[in-house]
């Protein structure tokens, strides 16, 4: 019995998979209530199927990129479950999960998530996939503006590209304008499903690979926002503000982490 958890964005998904069949899956708009809703829904989901946590024999988790706090909630929960139950854990980049959902198409696939600051998290894949084993992007997981992404895709790929994931209308428009007929878009909101994540995890666990609960780290792609001069801009103000609840430091993607600096990629 594999449990798959994904709270990478404001959209969340949880699934229970047994013998390759999805017993139950819950996909919902979670907003920023990742921790409150994930655990409550998980409890409900298990009860619905009359399954005790002790019957779980594997945990899969989407490890980002996405909303920093959102990603951390699912990863923290998955680590805790694997640790407390002593069962294997498998973390998968969220972009892999998104792309796996359209892996039947022939040709290039580009998985996208909004990263804030007018940028997207992106990775490209080559379809169709023969199997879930080893499903991975053809290049790096990157953070770019839609224009940069379009320019890269135009030079590297001459076939039509299928975009999948979650994006704002402006992002879609920018890609469509830059790429014209070669850009094809999966419906937004069909974003990703925990049962797809389960496919990837089952294939990986079957090969004997797993992640250690104490060692699995999210894929953030963005560095924390730190000003260059701590003396000029004391960070304590930020801490105190947060403690007073004035500036709850959870500005989440899209648009979140407003002033964060991207890793040069």
């Amino acid at each position, binding site marked *: 019995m594999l449990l798959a958890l994904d709270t990478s964005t404001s959209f969340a998904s949880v699934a229970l998979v047994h013998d390759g069949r999805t017993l139950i899956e819950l996909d919902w708009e979670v907003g920023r209530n990742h*921790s409150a809703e994930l*655990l409550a829904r998980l*409890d409900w989901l298990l009860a619905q199927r009359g399954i005790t946590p002790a019957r779980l024999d594997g945990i899969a988790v989407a490890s980002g990129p996405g909303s920093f706090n959102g990603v*951390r909630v699912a990863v*923290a929960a998955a680590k805790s479950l694997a640790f407390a139950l002593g069962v294997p854990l498998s973390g998968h980049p969220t972009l892999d999960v998104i792309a796996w959902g359209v892996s039947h198409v022939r040709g290039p696939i580009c998985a996208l998530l909004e990263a804030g600051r007018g940028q997207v998290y992106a990775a490209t894949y080559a379809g169709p996939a023969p199997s879930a084993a080893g499903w991975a992007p053809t290049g790096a997981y990157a953070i770019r503006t839609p224009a940069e992404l379009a320019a890269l895709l135009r030079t590297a790929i001459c076939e039509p590209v299928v975009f999948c994931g979650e994006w704002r209308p402006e992002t879609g428009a920018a890609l469509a304008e830059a790429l014209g007929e070669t850009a094809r878009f999966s419906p937004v909101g069909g974003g990703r499903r925990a049962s797809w994540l389960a496919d990837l995890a089952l294939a990986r666990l079957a090969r004997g690979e797993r992640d250690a609960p104490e060692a699995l*780290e999210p894929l953030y792609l963005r560095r924390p926002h730190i000003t260059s001069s701590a*003396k000029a801009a004391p960070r*304590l103000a930020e801490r105190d503000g947060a*403690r007073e609840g004035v500036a709850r430091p959870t500005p989440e993607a899209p648009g979140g982490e407003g002033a964060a600096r991207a890793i040069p990629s």
Partner: protein
Amino acid sequence: MRILGIESSCDETGAAIVADGRVILSDVVASQASIHERYGGVVPEVASRQQLSAVIPVVETALEQAGLGWGDLDGVAATYGPGLAGSLLVGLTVGKTLALARGLPFIGINHLEAHIYANWLRPVGAGVSGPEEAATGAAGWPGDPAFPLLALVISGAHSELVHIPRHGRYELLGQTRDDAAGEAFDKVARVLALGYPGGPAIQRAAATRDPARKNPLHLPRAWLPGTYDFSFSGLKTAVSQIVEGAEGVERAGDGGEIAPGTSRYEREGAAAARAGGVTAADLAAAFQDSVVDVLATKTVRAAKELGVRQVVLAGGVAANTALRARLDADLDPLGVALRYPPIAYCTDNAAMIAAAAYFHLRLGERHGYDLDVRPGLQLPFASRATAT
């Protein structure tokens, strides 16, 4: 009753197992202080990432040190506020998930209340054997703080004087109108380039003074007459003005990165900060004297007015030895006992979370899995007018 407590409200990841709210079976902390010292404070996103990296090894070590398995635990508790949202999310999510996975009761704990309950913790190795309720009775153990209590809650974000007539009831007498006491220590330590965190840094610097030499400085006190409120921002400004105005009082840390564990002040000594007979140590001591004077005077007055038999200190500033000594000296003639947690349990720790959890769980209180973080959480103050 053995409870696993998890604390992740700021820059430290803690897990502890405490029996019956008092006996520490294990206590583990992963500190990020050396990471944040570089920035002169805590960077929230860095703290959140470190929390997630540290939390499972810390919980695992707490279980190992106590020599306990999941079956030996009676509950799981985690801080749900106040604190940094991203940091709180990690510990709270882990706490709820561990409880769900192992079918254990879960309760979220108010970090401020937990600081007060640190006073119920016994010093490690205090020789309490067989810490089982059946043998000792649940209600009170010999040596527990005795209600009604007066609590001075003083940390980096809070300065509150609270009357506690019984478990769970908190009556606010007064609080800071601007900076918290610990915040003032941090800010003044930064002005004097003494390093972070400010409390221990100021205390160390003040201790380097020759006690026989009269301090040439006397800093102002904000008495706010007729109230139990505090104000520390004027004091911080006074220190800044002296530093900026007094030619040659050097800021020891200018232009240099502060190495972990040692401040420039310590490395270069008091000589670097000397000018016109006023040293950074004088400033640190005068600042500390002013804070301690106001905190102690108001606490003693409240203890008299309310007729409490015991005063408890709670929060990181409770570790300040000058404050402890002054309160001890002032309260003793009144027949009022001063209590404070062992120094290691004044600052953020997970043992106090497990201790506070015990007093809730034993009443059958629980939180659901839908509990969310509350970065701005306060003590649940009751009105004094309706006090029973």
